[in-house]
């Protein structure tokens, strides 16, 4: 599903974020990418979304070579890759329902699809009773659920999560992880960048450890360190 082949990334200011990274992720896998701040986790996520270009090497997502993809096809890629961030990125002037429906509306989905899928996915993430609330009326964990619902409402093949529990307390984090696990079980490939040790240790999933831009460990059913 995802393949990074000898990928290096040096930013224009000379900072090298990734060096010779080789990673294969199969369809339906759940992968943690761990490592200290600045180890290249976020760069990897950005590369997978084609928000950045590789300096060297190739990246394939769902069989497509991102380096050869025209900017015309980038939206298509992003429709197949859901994203969740530490800061939720919700629109405060829109309700829970509108935040999720926005993602479908702007890619041109018809109203009957929106009216069917949005309540369905919000029910799925456990917010079936908060459709008309605004983000600031919700707890952090609930807001992150909205953002997961938005990432999944278009049924992506891959879900990328960049520190999704970074702003949440341990109990809430566990709830969010249960939800991501649930999303993974219906076949979505999940790649989660994190430095939350407790969570990685508890989940016992595949762990890829980055250190100063290099893969130093790739272990199935691994722990944080």
């Amino acid at each position, binding site marked *: 599903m995802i393949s990074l082949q000898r990928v290096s990334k040096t930013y224009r200011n000379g900072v090298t974020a990734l060096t010779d990274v080789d990673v294969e992720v199969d369809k339906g896998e759940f992968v943690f990418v761990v490592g200290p701040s600045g180890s290249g986790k976020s760069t990897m996520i950005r590369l997978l*979304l*084609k928000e950045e270009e590789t300096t060297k090497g190739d990246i394939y997502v769902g069989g497509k070579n991102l380096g050869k993809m025209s*900017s015309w096809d*980038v*939206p*298509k*890629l*992003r*429709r*197949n890759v859901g*994203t969740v961030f530490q800061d939720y*990125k919700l*629109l405060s002037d829109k309700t829970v329902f509108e935040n999720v429906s*926005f*993602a479908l*509306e*702007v*890619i*041109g989905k*018809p*109203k009957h699809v929106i009216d069917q899928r949005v309540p369905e996915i919000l029910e799925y993430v456990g917010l079936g009773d908060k459709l008309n609330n605004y983000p600031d009326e919700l707890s952090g964990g609930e807001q992150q659920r909205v953002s997961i619902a*938005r990432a999944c409402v*278009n049924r992506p093949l891959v879900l990328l999560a960049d520190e999704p529990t970074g702003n949440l307390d341990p109990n809430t984090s566990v709830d969010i992880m249960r939800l991501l696990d649930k999303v993974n079980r219906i076949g979505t490939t999940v790649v989660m960048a994190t430095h939350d040790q407790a969570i990685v240790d508890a989940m016992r999933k595949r762990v890829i450890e980055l250190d100063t831009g290099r893969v130093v460990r790739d272990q199935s059913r691994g722990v944080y360190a």
Partner: protein
Amino acid sequence: MRIEYYFRETAAGLRRNGIVAFAAMSTAFIALFLFGLSLLIAREFGLVKDAWTGNVQVAVYLADPVKQDTITRIEQKLQGLDAISTMEYWDKTQTCEQYAKLFAGQATFLEGVDCEATIPTSFRINLTDPSRYAEVTAALSCVPDAGGQITCAEPGVQKVSDYRVLLDRLTTITKVLQVGVLAIAAIMLASAVALVANTLRMGMFARRKEIGIMRLVGATNWRIRTPFLIEGLVEALIGAIAAIIALFALKVIFIDRLRGEVQFFPLIKNADVLAVAPWVLAAAALVAVIAGTIGMRRFLDV
């Protein structure tokens, strides 16, 4: 659904940037008004030129009643001259049609003048070189009389009119006025482009979070840009419509008052303003497109 979406986005955008949008629209209005004005000036002076000179350098008027053999004889004489580059004979019908066209709507001239009886037929002549005018008068044995009229010994010729200087002056005045107004219009149009581009940028800045999310979930560039482009287009078109209304007002308030008052002075009509309107609208669209291109350049690479 889609149209409704764009409409909603555009309305919200205009409301959000109220003052800046107003500045953009009013600048577009003034710019487009001046642009339209320069086109109308060209039309008005074109009419005056037609009325006063028929757009030729020399006219040879024939004495009424005109006989066919007079026409043929004079035509043959003139045709032999190298000094003449183009020559056309206007009979009564053509002369009076032109007269009616020039003074359409000015009842004083149309009803007060019996065209068939008063206005003579003529050969309309353009010279290869204005300095060779004398060759034409010589061919018809003409001499200027005491009153400045040029009368000719050639039978059948009433008089020769020398329009070289007048035509030249009218052309120069038209150019100076038109270029002057057009230059001001160009500067104003450039400001309009800058202001419209600026409102688009402010709009995009205000909605950068939304745009970021749209890109993340895979909205196409056009999906993101279109509401802003429409916003720019609406601003420019509102300016254009105001400009067209102002041009009509100008015609009604200033031009229509002169109608029939000034001797042999043709005036632009509603049809002229209507003919200018599409150009004003096209200029507005161009303003919007350039503003869109400039305003969104940096902001929206995937």
